């Protein structure tokens, strides 16, 4: 059976056999870095195309269909266009911060890739506080947005950045709390432990109603955290023209754009890992034949399938709902999501202590 794990092991074995351990380490790091950047590029292209196609079909349109077969090369063409465009720095902007901001957004997105298990035994960095690491690092994203908004010396950008600051800080809370429910049930912060705990069934099925509630809250909170509609107040096209990236153009804009999509991918990957069993195949109790067929599907396919399903749901939100207003956005968090998820956390704790989950 084809699997990513075998490829990585083969490379590791070959490198270990050819070079001494230090060089092996260095080579592996380079390969990992290149792979992450490659994944970035591919994900950016795929997700942009996917978003456009999803949007088009929901809006009774065809979507991109001119560049390449079925418009598959459309995002390539877009990237090319963005590459050759002039990256302007507005007069009066804080040049250093202005140019730094997109890179911070990008670096944060890259850092978040580390603890994600893309397939069985295929992970960049298996650290024991994986989930904590993710929620900690993803908060840095807000700094790049604030930086971009402030440094642009544009009132729209500033307002977008300020909105985004309030938004991300508050939605961290309920995202964190809903992640905690799974952590409590598993008893570990390690990503692999969480996935292995779901070998006999995903948490969303095993954890009764409280986990379903926390799953819903998680989806809402991460939609807000990644500044996606209906929570795209930082961009708020019809109010703030383009929010914090109003003044960005060319490749600097593309980095923000890419970072947004990578963030969506990462939060969906985390959602898939925590609630939908990561790369664990779908098993039904004692249907051995069915389970066998499911096992035959490579674990990476399972992981990406689940992740893309969640991405689709988030895109579905975007193309259906109107945008919230800033005070309503904070109301939703502090009056609804936070109390519910705190109460929910209590329930889950009780379930975990009493051992009611499967």
């Amino acid at each position: 059976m084809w699997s990513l794990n075998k490829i990585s092991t083969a490379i590791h074995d070959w490198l270990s056999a050819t070079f001494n351990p230090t060089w092996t380490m260095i080579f592996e790091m380079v390969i990992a870095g290149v792979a992450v950047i490659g994944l970035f590029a591919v994900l950016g292209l795929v997700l942009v195309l996917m978003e456009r196609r999803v949007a088009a079909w929901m809006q009774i349109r065809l979507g991109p269909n001119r560049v390449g077969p079925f418009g598959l090369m459309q995002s390539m063409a877009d990237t090319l266009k963005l590459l050759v465009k002039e990256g302007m720095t507005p007069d009066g902007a804080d040049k250093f911060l202005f140019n730094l901001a997109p890179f911070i957004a990008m670096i944060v997105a890259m850092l978040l890739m580390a603890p994600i298990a893309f397939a069985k035994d295929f992970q960049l960095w298996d650290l024991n506080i994986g989930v904590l690491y993710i929620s900690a690092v993803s908060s840095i994203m807000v700094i790049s947005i604030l930086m971009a908004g402030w440094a642009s010396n544009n009132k729209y950008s500033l307002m977008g950045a300020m909105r985004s600051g309030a938004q991300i800080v508050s939605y961290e809370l309920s995202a964190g709390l809903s992640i905690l429910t799974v952590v409590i049930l598993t008893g570990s912060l390690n990503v692999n432990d969480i996935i292995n705990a779901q070998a006999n069934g995903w948490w969303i099925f095993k954890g009764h109603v409280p986990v379903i509630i926390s799953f819903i809250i998680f989806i809402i909170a991460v939609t807000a955290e990644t500044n996606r509609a209906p929570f795209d107040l930082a961009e708020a096209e019809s109010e703030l023209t383009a929010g914090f990236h109003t003044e960005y153009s060319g490749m600097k804009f593309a980095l923000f754009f890419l970072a947004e999509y990578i963030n969506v991918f990462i939060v969906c990957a985390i959602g898939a890992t925590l609630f939908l069993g990561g790369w664990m195949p779908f098993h039904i109790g004692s249907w051995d034949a069915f389970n066998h067929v499911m096992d035959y599907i490579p674990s990476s396919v399972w992981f990406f399938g689940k992740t893309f399903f969640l991405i689709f749901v988030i895109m579905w939100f975007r193309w259906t709902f109107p945008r919230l207003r800033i005070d309503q956005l904070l109301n939703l968090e502090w009056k609804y999501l936070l109390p519910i998820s705190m109460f929910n956390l209590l329930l889950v704790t009780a379930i975990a202590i009493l051992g009611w989950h499967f």
Partner: protein
Amino acid sequence: MFRETEILKSGSQVLPAGEDSGGAGDLVINVGPQHPATHGVLHLVITLNGETIKKVEPHLGYIHRSIEKMCESLTYRQFIYVTSRMDYLSAHINNHACALCVEKGMQIEVPERAQVIRVIMDELTRIASHELWWGAMAMDIGAFTPFFHAFREREKINEIMEETCGARLTMNYYVPGGLMAELHPDFQKKVKEFIALFKRKVDEYDELVTGNIIFINRMKGIGVLPKEDAISYGCSGPAARGSGVNCDIRKLYPYAVYDKVQFDEILETDGDSLARYMVRIREMKQSVRIIEQLIDNIPEGDFQAKTKAVLKLPKGEFYSRVETARGELGVYIVSEGGTTPYRIKFRSPGFSNLSALDHMARGSKLGDLVAMMGTLDLVIPDIDR
């Protein structure tokens, strides 16, 4: 005058405290003339305190073509086509107002057939205009999909217009004394098809937007315009009817065959954005009702009254009022007895409705301003003329 340039030049700095900015830390931003939510070249100078609006100051004229002055050198046949360019979304209704005014002055009896067709066309225009408003307003508050769904139905109306009038937006189909051409043979069939489609699809609008909890929260209690203020600010059309003002010209001063058809004047009493939204949604259904009553009963006869080749209005003043999709349009012609008007004034609904924006917007959030502008249904060429 000096002050605006100051604001424009100040770029992105926070203005210092002074009588202009109102206080320390106030943020003055220019919304427009190029801005996604203004749907045109409206320029609003907004004074903000954080996200809260302290003052909205419209600056107009970016698309002012001085249509009133232009009309002074055009004959009574020619000036009608210009008015299609004012409120281009209700071009037929604008033309109707002008034709009515000239007919009033010349005392032309318009054939019944022409009057019925005019009413059908007006109501189709009204539906098309409200469809566009619905899509654009949903886009203003962040939902992109409704725009395309609205345009699907609007496209059908445009096709009907194209077949009969030869154009999709600026038709110039009405002439003093009747219509420019006979109806297309397929007209009745197409209109019935459209009505069947529209009735099916209009419920989807409720699913997609009207019932949505986010939408209701964005609209309810936003931009409240009390009844007295609505009258005082000269608001008309759905903007005023949302505040409970009886102002439907079709009911109050019926023209064409509006006195012979059954329809309700839609009134909501809340005066907020949701009320204005509901007025328009319900008005579309009333328009369908009017069309349904007339489409099978178009009387036979001429589509145009016999008129002289050169129209000369007698000396005097003539005023006609019609209900466009945005409100009351008045055409005021002062004639000196020649072939061209001496002075012509278009009382456009958008101009008066816009003047209430500042009053409505004070104290609300920046995001609400967009919702308010959306529900006022501003068409900038109509405001600027």
